[in-house]
């Protein structure tokens, strides 16, 4: 799985430059060609879809879309959630209550429904997908990291820093934040798994990126109608999606084990 994830990252980075074809070029004389081992030709190693577009090329371009959405959503969600978590957890009191009740209410709205509604309002586009995912998911960062801040602020080094004369912002940024980095990294990689899934979902229902941008979700939607005649139109993007989601989840788990001393078995 580790190799699969690395391959995926490589595909996203290099994909467009190594893709054999323009992902949007239609060739109506060669529609639904099977993959090379199922009788197709080397011209289209993973076959073509119902419009004669090269599946491999679309998969490689789609990897870039998936990765950009994943990384951007994770980073921006962290940027939104961490300050809220620090403020709420450090100052406690009314601010904490207010922010956390807001987060509670926010999280009680069904995530997928909210994302779909947002996309319906915003219109199509890659950065709009990112925005929708951030709006839906920043609360996870706020909630989880606040819990950690609550534990950290009781540690004596925080009091020692204050006793030296550091103000609240410096305590948060210089003392607390560095201790939160492992947790943020783990949350971000789990968030990437979610973001890849949500992007595919939005594109599947036609509310994701524009039709001109190859996306795994859109490929699955397009291939669905021909599943019985040409399974590869839907099968390969699904496989890629599973690899990405499982890969990012495993990455998050692995990082957690590596970074969390409580879960570390060897010294």
């Amino acid at each position, binding site marked *: 799985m580790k190799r699969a994830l690395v391959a995926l990252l490589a595909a996203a980075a290099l994909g467009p430059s190594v893709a054999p074809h323009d992902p949007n070029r239609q060739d109506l004389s060669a529609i639904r060609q099977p993959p090379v081992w199922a009788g197709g030709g080397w011209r289209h190693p993973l076959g073509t879809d119902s419009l004669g577009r090269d599946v491999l090329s679309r998969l490689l371009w789609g990897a870039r879309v998936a990765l950009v959405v994943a990384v951007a959503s994770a980073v921006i969600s962290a940027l939104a959630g961490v300050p809220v978590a620090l403020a709420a957890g450090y100052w*406690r009191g009314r601010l904490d209550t207010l922010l956390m009740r807001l987060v509670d209410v926010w999280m009680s709205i069904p995530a997928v429904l909210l994302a779909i509604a947002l996309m319906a309002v915003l219109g199509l586009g890659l950065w709009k997908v990112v925005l929708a995912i951030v709006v839906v998911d920043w609360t996870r960062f706020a909630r989880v990291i606040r819990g950690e801040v609550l534990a950290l602020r009781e*540690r*004596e*080094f925080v*009091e*020692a820093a204050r*006793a030296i*004369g*550091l*103000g609240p912002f410096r305590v948060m940024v210089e003392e607390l934040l560095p201790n939160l980095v492992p947790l943020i990294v783990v949350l971000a990689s789990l968030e990437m798994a979610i973001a890849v899934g949500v992007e595919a979902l939005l594109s599947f229902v036609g509310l994701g990126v524009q039709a001109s941008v190859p996306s795994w979700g859109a490929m699955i939607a397009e291939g669905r109608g021909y599943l019985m005649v040409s399974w590869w139109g839907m099968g390969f993007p699904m496989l890629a999606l599973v690899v990405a989601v499982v890969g990012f989840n495993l990455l998050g788990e692995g990082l957690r084990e590596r970074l969390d001393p409580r879960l570390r078995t060897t010294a």
Partner: protein
Amino acid sequence: MSAPVLEVRGLTVRYGGRLATWEVGLSLGAGEILGLVGESGAGKSTVGRAVVRLLADGGRVDAGAIRFQGRDLLALSEPAMRRMRGADIALIPQDPLSALNPVFRVGLQATDALRLHRGLSRRAAVVEMVRLFGRMGLPDPADILRRFPHELSGGMRQRVLIAMAFSCGPSLVIADEPTTALDVTTQAQILRLLDDLQAERPVATLFVTHDLGVVAHLADAVAVMYAGCVVEVAPTAALFATPAHPYTLGLLAQVPRADARAEASPALEALMPTLAAPPRACPFRDRCPKRMAPCDAAMPALRAVAVDHRVACHLYAER
């Protein structure tokens, strides 16, 4: 004696519905060490925290005044107070094991105060810290600055924290049980270090501890606290020679001695009460072997029984 460095008057601190201290008064002259003793929950740490205005969550000063070098600390703005912390008033924290941030090298955090308050560059601060570490008896100071806190022993970490506390030349040091978390040998070394530092340059120190042995060794004067109230204040020699308050007598009887068989003192069998409201009777009466009628009627005020020796006990009311 010149004007005191620290003067605390009528300090009452409240945590929610609980009074952590009640009308505590203390006075600390320049270069003097005042030992503040009492059992856990007596409010001694609260006094120290109130002075630096770092009370734990929910803590609030209800009444009283804290004057430091003639300035009212409670009236100071938070930024002004922040400039004072670490520079004029330093705190030696209780647990050296957790008082250093685990993710930074010692050098970076130990020099925080120097850079913040004395405006030293990182390089100059490191040079100064190396000198201070040397004075603290830390071997190979330059190497220690490059290490992470978990790579140092408890005693070394406490020396680092003491170096940090003294780095900006404070006029007042609040030591909150600085030796409690250490083993006995290390305790002795740290106490000797504090002694040496005092001999070099006397700094007014509020030494919070539950260990009477430490106080006897280090302090010029002692204030004994019970249930948030100061019950006896005396010069160290006088307190140990002629303890007046029954609680102090009880405490002294609890100090284990090698030459005597241990026997439970009847005075300290009951538990210390927590104050919910201003005391209307002596808070010690339930544990006091010399309980009398007035003990249930009124909280005794501090009265002088000798020069600089004051006691809050009805036993000494008539005189």
